[in-house]
């Protein structure tokens, strides 16, 4: 098991509301888990618990237990966790510190004190994985939003983590750029066998890659499972708080229902829709 969360609750120091309430969750190696839910529902807080930023950097009331790759993030130094769990945040501008892309991707490796040859090997691999070899000598502030986010992801991939966590990586990207990035992340997961956890509002863009869909509302998990089943259950319950794939909703309205047959992608929709006529 890559991640095992049991009965986790957390309240930030000084807050009256609990940010996470009794979360239990297990994620297996190699999964592509998509977390969704309204802004402020606790997705980021949960992610911060998985790498140990909570409770180490943010004090508060912490109940329950988390095990990530055999380590307890509440006790293990973040720098040690970070070598197993890579975390990419929303805003790339606040994650890039150097004045060339190359130095930025090397930054974490320099901090670890790796040898120059090893740094070179790892960053070349990370550049290749994100398809940004041509940006190596550029400066981060002359890049587009999508390019910056790619650099930010490459800088974390260079740490060669087993688990990659991305907190709303596409929030400042346009739909097409976001879709391409998410598909490539799916590709990296399949090829490298790393576990990916991602929070995303636009399920349309990411449902194709997902093996797991987890819906969080006010610090609680309200749905968790195989994406198609979750989408089906939410449609059945008339749940309106997340942006479900539009074609699934349309299929539902057209009466193309069924827990194991509701379409979540375009191809499935077309197949299902044409299938009806036959």
């Amino acid at each position: 098991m890559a991640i095992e969360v049991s009965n986790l609750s957390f309240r930030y120091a000084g807050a009256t509301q609990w940010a996470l309430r009794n979360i239990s969750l297990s994620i297996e190696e190699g999964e592509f888990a998509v977390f969704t839910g309204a802004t402020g529902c606790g997705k980021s807080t949960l992610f911060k618990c998985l790498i140990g930023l909570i409770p180490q950097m943010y004090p508060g009331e912490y109940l329950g237990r988390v095990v990530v790759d055999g380590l307890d993030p509440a006790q293990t130094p973040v720098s040690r966790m970070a070598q197993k769990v890579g975390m990419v945040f929303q805003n790339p501008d606040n994650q890039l510190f150097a004045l060339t892309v190359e130095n930025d991707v090397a930054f974490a490796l320099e901090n670890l004190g790796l040898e120059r040859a090893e740094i070179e090997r790892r960053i070349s691999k990370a550049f290749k994985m994100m398809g940004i070899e041509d940006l190596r000598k550029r400066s981060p502030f002359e890049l587009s939003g999508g390019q910056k986010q790619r650099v930010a992801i490459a800088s974390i991939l260079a740490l060669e983590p087993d688990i990659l966590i991305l907190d709303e990586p596409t929030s400042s990207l346009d739909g097409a750029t976001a879709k391409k990035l998410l598909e490539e992340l799916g590709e990296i997961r399949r090829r490298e066998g790393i576990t990916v956890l991602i929070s995303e509002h636009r399920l349309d863009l990411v449902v194709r890659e997902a093996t797991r869909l987890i819906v969080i509302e006010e610090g609680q998990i309200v749905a968790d499972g195989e994406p198609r089943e979750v989408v089906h259950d939410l449609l059945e319950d008339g749940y309106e708080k997340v942006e479900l794939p539009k074609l699934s909703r349309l299929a539902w309205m057209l009466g193309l229902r069924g827990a194991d047959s509701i379409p979540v992608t375009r191809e499935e929709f077309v197949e299902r829709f044409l299938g009806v006529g036959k």
Partner: protein
Amino acid sequence: MFGEYWGGMLTVSSTIILTQLVLLRLARSARYMLSTMRGAIPLVALVFLLSLLGVLESAVAYGELLYRASASSIRFLAFLTSFNIFFLTTSPDEFGQLLLKLRIPYVYSFTFVAAVRLAPVIADEAQEIIDAQRSRGVEFEKGNPLKRLRVLVGLFVPLLINSLRRAYEMAEALEVKCFGASERRTTYKEIRATRRDILAAIVILAAFTLVLTAKSLKLFTGLP
């Protein structure tokens, strides 16, 4: 009347300019330099005028007056160009590495590089806030100085709050990038002195010695 002053000044100014021209050739950034220097012309003119005013009272000879004003302008210009050359040829990354080589703790050189990195981000943000405030009818250019100062509060308070939030996000990002994890941080790129660097050092040293010798030989007459 002129000769005794001009002689000295021409020596100094020509040494400075010659040194800088050679350095520019080495750095291959003469064109950038000239374009940034163009912006400095009003400042140099201001210095010239101010020094003219400053010595006006002391009732010195006309020639010496002019000489002193020119001398301060040239001194100012030399000062500007030196800084210009430094920042045109040395990237903050390299400067940070230099600090590291001088065994100054990494935290300080990192702070310096991060500050340079953030300058354009914060400038963008300030522009956004200005635009947002303008669209609400705030006028930054109008009114008496006191009123203008008050309007600026509407720029600096949001900027400060955003910066605090940014500081938190950066701290998180630094944590997950293992900042300070190893006692012995390595560097991916190492700075090495190339032939051009050594040549530049020699030119600077030569010019410096030249000026010092000239001064000790009292070649600069009338130099204040």
